[in-house]
């Protein structure tokens, strides 16, 4: 590089534009707005995915059950395939005596811990559904549990109906209900109105899926469900 060229570069004037505070402030505000929008979007999306968004006032998560109550609850749900088999075989819902004879727990006490062997069962056949009520005259339990099995292919379902889209491959819906008092008398079909609570698993489709299908026949007397 020659001396003349060097002198030319040294002498070159570089113009630095003055700071434009307004433009930078607008840029900063825009960035903040985008950030807030993204955070809001994330919140909305997450809340949409969260469990229990379809929880009704009469729903209770199953973690309220403790100790022997959980043992009974688990056994009630596990009994349903055999209840359904017996119904298919006999042409009617099985009564408690038959379930005990067929050694189906929790109706057969030999499959229960000693603390639950005093539980007395009764069944109430609703035609398209059946209720099994567990009462403990010994006073060992502080709640009353009820197992409701509903024929999904029947025309009429008890209130509240299962509340989710019916899977045509499923023959029945299973509901477990509880009343926070021992030896509560059977209230009939409409359990929520009588103060009973539907015990649901946190991942139960009833809590995670919106209901888009109503009962084939409207429930007499109306009411949501």
């Amino acid at each position, binding site marked *: 590089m020659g001396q003349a060229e060097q002198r030319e570069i040294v002498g070159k004037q570089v113009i630095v534009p003055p700071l434009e505070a307004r433009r930078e402030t607008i840029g900063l505000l825009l960035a903040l707005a985008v950030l807030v929008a993204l955070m809001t979007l994330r919140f909305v999306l997450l809340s949409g995915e969260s469990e229990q968004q379809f929880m009704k006032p009469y729903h209770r998560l*199953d*973690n309220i059950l403790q*100790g*022997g109550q*959980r*043992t009974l*609850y*688990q*056994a009630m*749900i*596990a009994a349903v*395939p*055999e209840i359904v*088999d017996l119904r298919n075989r006999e042409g009617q819902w099985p009564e408690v005596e038959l379930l005990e004879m067929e*050694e189906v*727990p929790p109706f057969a006490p*030999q*499959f*229960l*811990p*000693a*603390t*639950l*062997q005093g539980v007395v069962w009764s069944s109430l056949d609703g035609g398209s559904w059946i209720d099994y009520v567990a009462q403990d005259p010994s006073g060992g339990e502080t709640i009353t549990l009820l197992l409701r099995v509903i024929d999904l292919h029947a025309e009429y379902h008890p209130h509240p109906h299962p509340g989710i889209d019916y899977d045509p*491959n499923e023959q029945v819906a*299973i509901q477990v209900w509880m009343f926070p008092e021992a030896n509560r008398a059977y209230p009939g079909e409409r359990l929520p109105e009588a103060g009973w609570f539907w015990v649901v*698993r946190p*991942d139960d489709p009833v809590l995670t899926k919106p209901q888009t299908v109503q009962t084939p026949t409207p429930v007499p007397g109306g009411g949501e469900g």
Partner: protein
Amino acid sequence: MKRFALLLATSLFLIALSGANSHAAGPLKIGVTLHAYYSWVSEIVGETAIVEPIIPPGSDPHTYQPKPTDLAKLKEIDVLVRNGLGHDDYINPMLKAAGREDMTVLDPHKGLPLIAVHEQTYAFESGEKKVAYNSHTYISITGAIQQINTLADELGKLAPANAALYKTNARAYAKRLRRMQADALAKINRLDPARLRIATVHDGYAYLMQELGLKIDAVIQPRHGIEPSPRQLQDTIKRIKQADVQVLFSEMDYQKKYVDIIFQETGCRIYTLTHISNGPYVKEKFEQDMQRNLDTIVKALTDARG
């Protein structure tokens, strides 16, 4: 010679044809991730399907590192039975690596009441807010029966011609398992277990203990692979003493040194349960291991009664 060549060509053609159709027309190939699932599915399907364990016997499902041969196995499988609650998380990247993310996957715990881990007051999890569910749903009897029935139904949907057989097999299996449970309960119920304080080395037995009406007062190692630090061990010993624990259920792969320290410090009796995750995959394993667990529990409670 000509006849032989014709015969050979026909045979090769038929072999090729049968090979091409074997996946669709052959028996259902069912992959399983745990020993218990191997037993359950084998009992349900009998000779009508092939049951294939995904990881070799003796591998720890919590820490398993997949091998290329496992991926090849996954490619041959029609349906997979997995835990889905964190006990066999290795399977998800394996499905992706094998290009089988579209595979039909059955989670047997569908519809099963789960035990939330956060509900229990573990010594080392105080302050932990994360909600998780106990993944050891297979170490149970009532819970196992519900899952066996679920699997029979789901597999029946995949093989409708065998659906009735699967249901019959599941019910017969359930009756045998219930008989085991009733025999154990008859003994346990005579021992007044409510007065005993029980601890386990990890939370894998919560479902089984719940079914037997036994309360777990302390859990030493909440998860596999997490060894208690000296401070945690000290805390456990303190809690065992405070809770007046008389029986500690250990397991085969739990380090003896911790069990020994606890015994020296607390005088708590120690018995070994099986996690149903060791040894060869055989149909009888679940029944055999559960019988062993039930016998051990009965013995522990009998001894503690004195």
